[in-house]
């Protein structure tokens, strides 16, 4: 289809204008609001005890949730791509659930299972383990919402490469452990890496599921996104610089994530 120069240019203009208005302008305004009173002011808001502890909690939750979902993801992808059990189709369908269930429902679900009066609530509370309104609940919520990313990135790669190399390794006497480390893992590494980046981005940014199971107390159960949300930091719809500072921190992290994502995505596609 040979599109005329004029049509090409107008399509390009419409697309770029749409992206600029929808993506760049709003994000740019947040940066501007953060630094409008100077870099020093913004920096002082980013380094308040509440902001630092929120950053650390976000990182802590991601550090627990990401490895768990990576191990599960690679394992489940192997089952889906290589296994021949009958239950496979059901697993395949259920794995996508976290992508379509509202995050708030995830929070409610955890409340009903682990909260006071919940299914297993008393079991944990009687043993002195607090899950809801504490960090463990926030970790479970994060694991829930970021569960499918690695599976969904790795499964198609495994299907595409087929299992001939793995069979060859097995024929040559390699144990399945050796085959996994030396043949399978090197093949899927960029797919895994890409899935890990997506999982990390979601884990650091999650709010809907986490807000329900957090006690929202600064210094103990407040993640960076929760710090941005906190209602009392916005007086009458007026957002304070401290909130913009926390948002800018998150935006900087996500731009780094985006860079890594682009890099890994390209490697993965080249494979």
């Amino acid at each position, binding site marked *: 289809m040979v599109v005329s120069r004029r049509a090409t240019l107008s399509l390009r203009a419409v697309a770029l204008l749409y992206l600029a208005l929808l993506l760049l302008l709003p994000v740019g*305004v947040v940066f501007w609001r953060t630094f409008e009173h100077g870099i020093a002011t913004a920096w002082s808001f980013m380094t308040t005890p509440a902001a630092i502890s929120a950053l650390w909690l976000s990182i802590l939750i991601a550090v627990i949730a990401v490895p768990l979902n990576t191990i599960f993801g690679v394992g489940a992808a192997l089952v889906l791509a290589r296994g021949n059990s009958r239950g496979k189709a059901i697993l395949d369908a259920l794995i996508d659930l976290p992508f379509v269930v509202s995050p708030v429902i995830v929070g409610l679900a*955890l409340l009903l299972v682990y909260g006071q009066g919940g299914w297993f609530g008393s079991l944990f509370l009687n043993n002195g383990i607090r899950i809801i309104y504490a960090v463990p609940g926030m970790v479970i919520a994060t694991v829930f919402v970021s569960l499918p990313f690695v599976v*969904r990135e790795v499964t198609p790669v495994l299907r595409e490469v087929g299992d001939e190399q793995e069979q060859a390794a097995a024929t040559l006497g390699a144990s399945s452990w050796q085959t996994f480390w030396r043949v399978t893992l090197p093949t899927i590494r960029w797919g895994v890496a890409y899935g890990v980046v997506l999982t990390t981005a979601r884990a650091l940014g999650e709010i809907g599921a986490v807000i329900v199971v957090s006690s929202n107390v600064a210094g103990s159960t407040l993640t960076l996104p929760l710090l941005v949300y906190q209602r009392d930091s916005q007086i009458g719809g007026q957002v304070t610089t401290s909130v913009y500072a926390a948002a800018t921190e998150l935006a900087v992290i996500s731009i780094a994530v985006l860079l890594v994502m682009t890099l890994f995505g390209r490697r993965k596609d080249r494979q």
Partner: protein
Amino acid sequence: MPAELQPAPATAAGTASLSPPPGAARTHARVRAGRSGLGLGVATLYLSLIVLIPLAAVVVKAFSSGLGTLWSSIDNTLVLRALAITLGASLLVAAIGAVMGTLVAWVLVRDRFPGQRIVNALIDLPFALPTIVAGLTLIALYGPNSPVGIHLAYTRGAVIVALLFVTLPFVVRSVQPVLIELDREVEEAAASLGAANATTFRRVVLPALRPSVLSGAALAFARSVGEFGSLALIAGKVQIASIVIYADIESGSEQSAAALSAVLMLLSLVVLFLIRRFGGRVGR
């Protein structure tokens, strides 16, 4: 090649072949089947503990006081209004997203301009940016202190813009690969047979893109129905379902939260089923 991977010495005298002894393949297959069964078991257990049991708790809670109570907690003006607004906004967002997403994908694949790779990378920004920040950006731009003088925050318009932001990558990333693979000779054939560009697009390009556009739009729809983070700050008094659920949880009425959740989950399941049935993949 590492020593462990050296072929095992052939057992039968005189066989130079590296093929395993007869029957080995079958044993191997059986071992693998057993192991894959175990893997399936572990994966299902993990999924059950994290995802299935909690979601089951929501359904059980919704039905806990009987069907009558469930129905009465759904059949009230507030909940029905929330459902209507949420579905209406999600449909509108899916429709706009389908058109604009296809347009953006077209420009990214068929056009060449400086900075294109940066624009291409930017498409994923909504997946990388925490949703609460997305909501805050809209307050910064359209809120009470709006630098552009547009006061959109806390209205339905703001909800639509927020949802368009967070769902942008779905249609673009679902259409893009299909457009790259598309056989351009068919388009040339259509053109050489005298078809105008509009006709070629409508009769040749669009039918090839339709499944990917639809599955991208369905994903955008599903995401919009459940979206919370980007709307939490800017929805104001607009009764979006996820925000009504959150308010219910906060005020301690878990029963009505569970009832509305059950309706939304049913809706998500239908969308999930439709996407699986008519091609496309959830996610990316």
